[in-house]
């Protein structure tokens, strides 16, 4: 399936960023972390963002995750233009549509595995124990559900972070260097989870320095100075690889 086919098949976009700018002022100097960036994401699509440090990868994720506001441009998430929304409305977008995974996991140290996963449900005022149990089983941590984060290794902590990002059934999963702190074995497991999720219709955007992980996406965008400088579509490659396997 090509990138265009993704968009055609679904007939709607989970994400549409048009001419997105994020500028900062340092004294008289203006720094453009994002400079007129365009991006779309379809359901079931995995997009990897690569680029050297400071190229704008994390800034882009923060804009899409509604953690920061763009200086200029248009950003639609699940059909809603979010650039003019109030803080409370942005929180609603984050809660209902976005799942965020961080390189350093950022689990709450005082909460157990299941409590960390359940946390977004509290903010959404939902009670869905079935979903929590289902996710714990899916990430393979049933035996550690009452463990504290400090009792887990990096791979398990990232699995918990993924489950936490998914508990509210988001449409878009944002992952900032999701395998940056993981061993090779764990990296493979995380990617496996992303693929499964994509098959369920979740759109995934991951910023990474890992070339292997980037190639395993459907599409790879390379950023430099806040702009997309190259775009590669691996959809056919991946399909062919799978067929060969």
């Amino acid at each position, binding site marked *: 399936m090509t990138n265009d086919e993704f968009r055609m098949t679904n007939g709607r976009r989970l994400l549409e960023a048009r001419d997105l700018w994020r500028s900062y002022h340092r004294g008289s100097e203006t720094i453009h972390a994002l400079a007129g960036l365009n991006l779309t994401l379809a359901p079931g699509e995995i997009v990897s963002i690569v680029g050297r440090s400071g190229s704008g990868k994390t800034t882009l994720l923060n804009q899409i995750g509604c*953690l920061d506001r763009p200086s200029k441009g248009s950003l639609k998430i699940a059909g809603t233009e979010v650039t003019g929304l109030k803080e409370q409305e942005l929180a609603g977008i984050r*809660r209902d549509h976005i799942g*965020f995974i961080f390189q350093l996991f*950022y689990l709450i140290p005082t909460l157990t595995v299941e409590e960390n996963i359940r*946390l977004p449900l509290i903010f959404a005022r939902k009670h869905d124990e079935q979903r929590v149990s289902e996710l714990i089983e899916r990430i393979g941590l049933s035996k550690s559900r009452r463990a504290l984060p400090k009792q887990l290794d990096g791979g398990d902590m990232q699995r918990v972070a993924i489950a936490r990002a998914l508990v509210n059934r988001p449409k878009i999963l944002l992952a900032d260097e999701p395998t940056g702190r993981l061993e090779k074995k764990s990296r493979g497991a995380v990617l496996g989870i992303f693929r499964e999720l994509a098959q369920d219709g979740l759109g995934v955007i991951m910023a990474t320095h890992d070339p292997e992980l980037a190639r395993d996406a459907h599409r790879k965008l390379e950023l430099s100075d806040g702009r997309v400088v190259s775009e590669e579509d691996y959809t056919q490659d991946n399909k062919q690889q799978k067929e060969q396997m």
Partner: protein
Amino acid sequence: MSFIRFALKNLFAHKTRTILTMGSMTVAVAVLFTLVSFNRGYEKALKTQLQGMGIHMMVVPVGCPYEAASLILKGGKIPNYLPADVLDQVNAIPGIDVAAPAFMSGIVRPDEGRTDIFVGVDSATLRLKNWWKIDGRFPEKPNEVVLGSDVALIEQSHVGDQIYVPEKDATFDIVGVLEPTGNEDDGMFYIPLQTAQKLFTDTTIATAAGSVTDKLTGISIRLKDPDDAPVISAQLGKIRGAEVITMGELLGTMMTLMGAAKSLLLSIVLIIIVISALGVLNTVLMSVFERTKEIGVMRATGAAQAHIFGLIWLETLMLSLLGGLGGLGLALVGARLLESLVKKFLPLAPRGSVVALEPGSFILIVAFVIGIAVVAGFYPALRAARAKPIEALRSE
């Protein structure tokens, strides 16, 4: 997991800090609750005691209303006497049901830590205190005595026994023991009026004022109609050498005396509470600073500003409430101990409990603690809620 459980987990992530902060709140609330309870209890006990005396007003020597108040409550020595003819003048005023003369004096026994109060009475006292029940009879002969129930217990004496008063080289036959009344009457020795006048009149004062044997320290009055008190009080006030104290005035005087001490104590307690509230604010603020990244993560996972504000405020509320409830518990346990200590320093302490641990006070203090939490938690909660998600996530 509920919001409350989450807040509790956050609180006890730093046990020592949380417990110390709670401890300061516990002490502050314990002192405040005890003070409020003491204030209510004291007023209540005083009113009960004054009403229980069956007296509407007292005529005392001029210039010593406070000493008279002390006499009424605890007994003691008055440094002045009423002129001889005052009783006749009082009895001449219409509307007075009973006017009971009394001569009261005390013998201090520091070795035993007590003062024996001797009250010279006549049959008018029996009419005034018509609820008295005496096991035996009222004293008639000069060397007869009726003991208050507490005195009989302390002296371990019964009707038919004798007691010797070495200071006055006098021996009394016990002809009666008063059944417990629950007020200060239980702690006195009742002897005939003339015997008291002879034995206890201070000749230096009495000589200056006239004869030795017809002095009085006070006249207790019951009116036919208590509503006549203002009119009769005005008439009694015209008697030379006498001063009138109504029970309402007496209560007011005592509460005024207490008021100054109470204000001082309340000021100290308020300072303790302010310090304690600042402690709570500091603890919560430190916790907010330490958890800035955590707050950023919560925002990224869907928490609105209101959620963060509510969470931090809830933590403050729980910290204060736990400390406050601890303080209330401490006050309930320690109130009696504190009462005995306080009573030692109170010159006009009524009998019985002066600490009233009432539900009203309990609710008042809980509301007060919630008020402190609301104020102390506001700034940290606002600060946490206002943090921009991206800046919170970048914080170290």
